[in-house]
């Protein structure tokens, strides 16, 4: 075979691999990019404004952490063909099952309220009334699922994931100091002032926003709904790895934006940062506002689906996005109602949104450790996983990461309840 034939053969093989990956791609990228939800974007913009480029290295480290947790759900979903809620009921019994399910529903609903807060705050920068944002968002979210094919929903979600990358061109537009970014990315360091209580709280917030309980339930159910098999697990892992890379890149983009343009400024949320950017460069402000809306939107649809899938799995309803509305009425009814209820809270005048944000942080602490412990136990059960059960190295990595996440999220939740504890 001459060299051109060899090159052509390799090129065709490469295209085949890409096409195969694109068939499997989806759950990993969607869950990871949706992880950069309204709360996440707020955390990153605050991090950049407060601590400049000094903590980018920390965000980079969180990428593999997120990967190792989410990769477990790929294996569990592909092998058991069960969502996480059903897997807990099946393996651990009704008590732990109901605890996980009801806790998930509560945490998810509260988190969705924060997503709607982010969306409405983002579009209010363009003068869009809150009620218009809520109604239009709900209509788009409903339309996405009504065509009765998981594949179509997934590809639409991936378009929104692409929009979430808007922070990257925004960060490039402002000519950020490359040497400082590289220094902050690859040299572990503390910001000037050293290790303070405020820094500790923000680091915990960054960890808390990287791993959320709904992600575990969402990805496992999405893997099942997509119909992934054991033979697809490698592609699922690659999908998840690529997603974790994108999540780190977007997080870094947010930090670079506020570190460059709003250093040292007191910012309470991403919408405030977007408003200030508007004063500097209206396109930049628009990019950040669009990114914030997209983050909230993606978060809301994924979180609502996580709950809908979980309920459907346990109650035995038809619960696939491949079902039409009349085939799975309760599944879709839950999805629509959940979103509508969360959106309605934002419309209530003087709704206690700050308190709700606090509740989310605290209640998520009750669910996340349980979900992660169940994951590890299930992945070590030979009867459940067969030849795909955790290896020694996987246990070492997974248990270590899970233990760290539980410790940090507990401290975060407790410090949210008792703010003076750290002082």
């Amino acid at each position, binding site marked *: 075979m001459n060299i051109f034939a060899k090159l052509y053969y390799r090129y065709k093989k490469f295209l085949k691999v890409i096409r195969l990956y694109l068939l499997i791609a989806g759950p990993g990228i969607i869950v990871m990019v949706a992880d950069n939800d309204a709360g996440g974007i707020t955390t990153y913009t605050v991090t950049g404004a407060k601590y400049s480029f000094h903590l980018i290295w920390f965000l980079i480290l969180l990428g593999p952490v997120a990967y190792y947790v989410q990769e477990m759900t790929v294996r569990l979903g592909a092998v058991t063909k069960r969502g996480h809620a059903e897997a807990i009921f099946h393996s651990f019994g009704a008590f732990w099952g109901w605890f996980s399910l009801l806790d998930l529903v509560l945490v998810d609903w509260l988190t969705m309220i924060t997503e709607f807060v982010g969306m409405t705050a983002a579009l209010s920068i363009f003068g869009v009334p809150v009620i218009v944002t809520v109604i239009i968002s709900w209509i788009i979210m409903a339309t996405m699922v009504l065509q009765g094919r998981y594949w179509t929903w997934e590809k639409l979600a991936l378009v929104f994931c692409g929009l979430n990358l808007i922070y990257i061109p925004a960060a490039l537009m402002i000519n950020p100091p490359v040497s400082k970014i590289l220094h902050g990315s690859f040299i572990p360091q503390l910001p000037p002032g050293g290790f303070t209580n405020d820094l500790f709280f923000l680091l915990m917030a960054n960890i808390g926003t990287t791993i959320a309980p709904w992600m575990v339930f969402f990805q496992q159910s999405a893997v099942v709904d997509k119909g992934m098999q054991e033979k697809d697990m490698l592609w699922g892992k690659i999908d998840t790895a690529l997603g974790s890379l994108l999540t780190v890149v977007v997080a870094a983009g947010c930090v670079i934006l506020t570190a460059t343009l709003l250093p040292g400024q007191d910012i309470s949320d991403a919408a405030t940062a977007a408003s200030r950017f508007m004063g500097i460069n209206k396109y930049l402000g628009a990019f950040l506002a669009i990114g914030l809306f997209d983050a909230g939107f993606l978060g809301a649809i994924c979180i609502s689906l996580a709950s809908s899938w979980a309920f459907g799995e346990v109650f035995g309803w038809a619960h696939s996005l491949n079902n039409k509305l009349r085939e799975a009425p309760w599944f879709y009814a839950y999805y629509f109602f959940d979103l509508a209820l969360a959106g309605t809270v934002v419309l209530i005048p003087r709704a206690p949104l700050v308190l709700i944000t606090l509740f989310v942080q605290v209640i998520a602490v009750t669910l996340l450790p349980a979900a992660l*412990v169940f994951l590890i136990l299930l992945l070590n059960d030979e009867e459940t996983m067969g030849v795909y059960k955790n290896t020694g190295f996987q246990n070492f990595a997974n248990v270590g990461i899970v233990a760290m996440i539980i410790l940090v999220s507990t401290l975060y939740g407790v410090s949210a*309840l008792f703010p003076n504890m750290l002082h």
Partner: protein
Amino acid sequence: MGFLKNTRNVIRSINQKYARPHMKMTRRVRFSLGLLRGYLLFLVAIMVYKFIVIALHG
């Protein structure tokens, strides 16, 4: 009323279906679940404490 009765029956059937855990309850599993229970009780206790403090002092 019919809806509530239906829901109660569904919940009962779910409880019956998942009455027996299928996980092999080894010592490690029992220990992990026991630790989890203790941890959750601790969290509930501090939440209740915080709630009482807020209720009493505003």
